[in-house]
């Protein structure tokens, strides 16, 4: 199956119940199986600028490169797949663009953004993130977080200082330890996961997972799994019903079929004639 037929992608954002403007940005490129979500921070409208820059750099650059190249190509210099490299390099590119804008223009000083991005190809997803925007995976009825927040709270959980239950009532929420555009360089966390048919991937900003428990997110995805548009709306409503203190952005990706890259010469030939 071609990638745009194998995946169903829905995105929605909402400014929430308290904030007047929305600093979250999303971009989806179904033709190359790419989804990007960013949650900006910084005074006035700088947060929107930072998250907008991040998603547009990543989305347009990767889409452009994948027009003529395959994400499974091995890059000689590093031995990595092009898909992995593109995601990492373009997030770093977004980082330097935002950093330079914030250095050169006083109204953007100190702006930054989180980012979470997924590139789907060859029955896999490359998940890259910085900060506390997350990617979840619903497989069967089980919901799992497949990114790990770069936040103070997550570090405390890892160090055994605070339990997962106590973390929910901590006053140290919203403190990220890594962000895009704050320093001249940034380390991107990238992992590759195998994808199964019927998996649902959820990318979200902390406006969702701070307001709704993982159990509520799981039951919403299970109940509305056959209708992604309703599921996205329902998740946003869930966060707003619980207070909606922050902007909420969600992207849902449902895997409807396999999307292996053609490998043998015969499949490649058939594929060629299909075009």
């Amino acid at each position: 199956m071609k990638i745009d037929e194998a995946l169903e992608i829905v995105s929605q954002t909402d400014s929430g119940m308290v904030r007047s403007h929305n600093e979250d940005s999303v971009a989806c490129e179904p033709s190359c199986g790419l989804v990007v979500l960013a949650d900006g921070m910084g005074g006035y409208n700088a947060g929107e600028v930072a998250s907008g820059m991040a998603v547009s750099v990543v989305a347009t650059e990767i889409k452009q490169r994948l027009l003529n190249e395959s994400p499974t190509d091995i890059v000689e210099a590093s031995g990595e797949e092009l898909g992995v490299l593109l995601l990492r390099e373009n997030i770093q590119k977004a980082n330097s663009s935002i950093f330079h804008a914030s250095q050169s223009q006083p109204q953007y000083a100190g702006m930054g953004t989180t980012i979470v991005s997924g590139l789907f190809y060859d029955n896999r997803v490359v998940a890259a993130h910085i900060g506390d925007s997350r990617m979840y995976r619903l497989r069967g009825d089980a919901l799992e977080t497949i990114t790990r927040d770069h936040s103070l709270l997550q570090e405390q959980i890892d160090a055994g200082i605070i339990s997962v239950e106590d973390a929910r009532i901590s006053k140290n929420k919203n403190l990220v330890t890594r962000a895009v555009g704050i320093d001249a360089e940034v380390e991107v966390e990238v992992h590759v996961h195998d994808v199964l048919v019927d998996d649902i991937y959820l990318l979200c900003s902390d406006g969702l997972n701070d307001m709704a428990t993982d159990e509520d997110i799981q039951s919403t995805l299970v109940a509305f799994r056959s209708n992604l548009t309703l599921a996205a709306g329902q998740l946003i409503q869930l966060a707003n019903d619980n207070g909606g203190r922050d902007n909420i952005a969600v992207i849902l990706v449902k895997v409807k079929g396999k999307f292996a890259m053609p490998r043998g010469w015969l499949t490649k030939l058939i594929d060629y004639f299909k075009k």
Partner: protein
Amino acid sequence: MAAKLILSMDGAVIKEYPLNKERMTIGRKPHNDIAIDNLAVSGEHAAIVTILNDSFLEDLDSTNGLEVNGTPTKKHFLQNNDVIGIGKYKLKYINDQVTQSTPADFEKTMVLRNPVKQAPPAASKPAEPSGFAQTQGNVNKPAAAPSADVTSKIEAIKPAAQGGAPSQVAVVQVLTGPNAGKELELTKNLTTLGKPGVQVAVLTRRPHGFFITHVEGASHPTVNGTQLSDQPHQLNDHDVIELAGVKMEFYYKG
């Protein structure tokens, strides 16, 4: 600004201690930050570790132990107004930051920067990201403490989300078909009705009532004879839902 402890005995306040150090000790010996000269108190009795706005109480293997709000404890994540009991002494923990910040400071996501640039904390390298939720409680902890030595002033705080729900119990009773008479109490936030692949609707509990939403199936369910649109529809007491040929009544109990 900072959280504090108020030391008292028999209701009489003795002294206030601001929690202005990352680690403060409580004990009988004079070198403790909070020194209590009483034989029931161990030399080094307890420690309080403060990380930004969160404080944790820890028993340092004291002879007579610690109580928090009357319950013996070894380790405790302190919450505003908790009362720590050491012998006859009480230490009340006050952290009312929520009321002291302006609303504009709420919820802002901020970046914690490591004082040493480009030095990623050891804890941020997950061994196996897909399975970490299960292993968080392990003894296998990274040795590095989190980067708590933050110099910037941080006021991002958040009260726990208040998930309000209607207190009345709502019920769906089946009126027709083989299951006629059966009652289903809507105790969960989401209840799925119907058959997957044929016709499915979801009942959602929200702060201001229950809603029905058509999720899948060629035909939409009806409420009191009117077909539902694609939007959620609020249910009123004694509404009759028809779904996949089965009629059922929605009502509030009691």
